[in-house]
């Protein structure tokens, strides 16, 4: 019993990873768009499980909060409102599958080429590396959220703010596009 639990605990990342892949496969293969969204939701929850298995609890929870709680709900909203069965009859989606397969293969190859050291290389000895003067009085392995916030609001403040400005630009752009289409 003890041994079994220990093995499961050690392989938590792999378990969640495989589950996430299954969810993604279901999402691609599902006939109905709502089923696809459900598969996507499952994948997102499993990815957050992966983060938790790596002791990155803040990112794991942010994953659930942002993706599962926000973005996928909006997907579901759109999918529910748009009558997708009409598109299915016209075969709009089937036309693209050939190009989609090629795009996925190219993307996967590029991903493996870019991250092959990260995936197959030795893992980093520390979960998160923070400047020693920032990490003062903090148990980095246990207090993940605090460590992330100290890094984010001191060393990485400018990139963080620029990222939020980029998101704002996207938001304003979306509003402008939606407005012009309606008038």
């Amino acid at each position, binding site marked *: 019993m*003890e041994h079994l639990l220990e093995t499961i605990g050690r392989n938590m990342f792999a378990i969640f990873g495989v589950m996430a892949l299954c969810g993604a496969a279901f999402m691609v293969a599902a006939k109905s768009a709502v089923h696809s969204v459900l598969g996507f*939701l499952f994948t997102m929850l499993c990815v957050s499980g992966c983060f938790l298995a790596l002791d990155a609890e803040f990112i794991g*929870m942010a994953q659930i909060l942002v993706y*599962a*709680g*926000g973005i996928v709900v909006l997907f*579901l909203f759109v999918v*529910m409102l748009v009558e997708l069965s009409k598109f299915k009859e016209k075969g709009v989606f089937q036309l693209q599958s050939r190009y989609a397969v090629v795009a996925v293969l190219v993307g996967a190859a590029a991903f493996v080429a870019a991250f092959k050291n990260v995936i197959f290389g030795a893992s980093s000895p520390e979960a998160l590396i923070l400047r020693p003067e920032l990490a003062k009085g903090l148990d980095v392995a246990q207090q993940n959220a605090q460590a992330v916030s100290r890094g984010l609001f001191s060393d990485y403040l400018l990139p963080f703010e620029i990222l939020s400005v980029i998101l704002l630009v996207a938001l304003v752009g979306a509003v402008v596009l939606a407005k012009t289409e309606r008038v």
Partner: protein
Amino acid sequence: MPTMTLTQTLVMGLLQCVAVLILIFVMVPLLTFAERKVIGYIQVRLGATRTAGGLVGITGALNRGMWAMGKLPVLSILRGLPVFIADILKLILKEDIIPAKAERSVFTLAPIISVMAAFGVFSAIAFFPGVLFTFPAKFPIVGGLPFMGFISDVNVGVLYILGLSSVGVYGIVLGAWASNSKYPLLGGLRSAAQIISYEVPLTLSLLTPVVLAGSLNFKDLSIRLSTGADMHWLGAIPLFVGFLVYTTCGFAETNRTPFDLPEAETELVAGFHTEYSGMKFGFFYLAEYTNMIVVSCFASAFFLGGYYLLPFGLQRLIPASVPFLGQPSILFFFLKVFAILFLFLWVRATLPRYRYDQLMDVGWKWLIPLTLVNLFVAGLIRYAF
């Protein structure tokens, strides 16, 4: 605390989950009974009275004696209590109908998602920050181990609870869509829009205590806020405003009056669960009441002082040396939970329903700016003192 082996941790976790489930399954039926009675008395009715304790036995003799003297029996306030047993039996035994044109798999999945999201939240809620009792050594696996007042001590507990409760909206939206019927779909869309809108001020109002106390851990945050450690006494002002906003948003998140537009019976029959029957409907019902308990636990822990007696960080007025009032207690926590649950019932009996545009106005034009200003004030207090 002795270090536990993995098996012991697992068994202990399961025992705590069972304890929490028992708590939920006791509180929810009692809450429905309280709802009948409280709303009844507020509206000058008697509420549920038809099932009594019986006219035989000791209580029966008492009842008959009182009745003979021309007085209302003592136990009349508890009359109607057995109704919830009938309620549960009805829900379990009723025929479970799935409409012919419904999407079967999603239709079944929706109530499960609702209930799982509602129950899963309890794994990060701390009912008491320490040991409730210790198992005697004669128990097989868990002998000598402490039974804590919380299932797990999550460092980012607040985020976990917010995230998981935001997953709960899928149950409503999917159930509405899978019913393949007009009224449920309308109810589901309303519900999704409402919950997404009110999630913003809800999260922002919870940031006020987080900023003031500087922690995301449920139990840690609650203790810091109520004892007022590292917090200036002015912090009570943004906490109070945050409490008002949080409870308002909590009403909207749990689809309770005056924000119960998703199930507005005059317009939408019953909203998203129109097509549901039997225990599937029971699960939605259970999830709604469990969410009420969750909102109450949150408000109790972060705004009303949690395990300590006085709310809004005023506990420092009572020194810790005072025997009962100065110490943390699970009683204080549940006292506040019950008080807020009563508030839920009180508001339902008092206020009429909002119109849809009013609902959106309140959320976006009033609550969000108010919480932003409140958060700014909290940040100023934190920075200045």
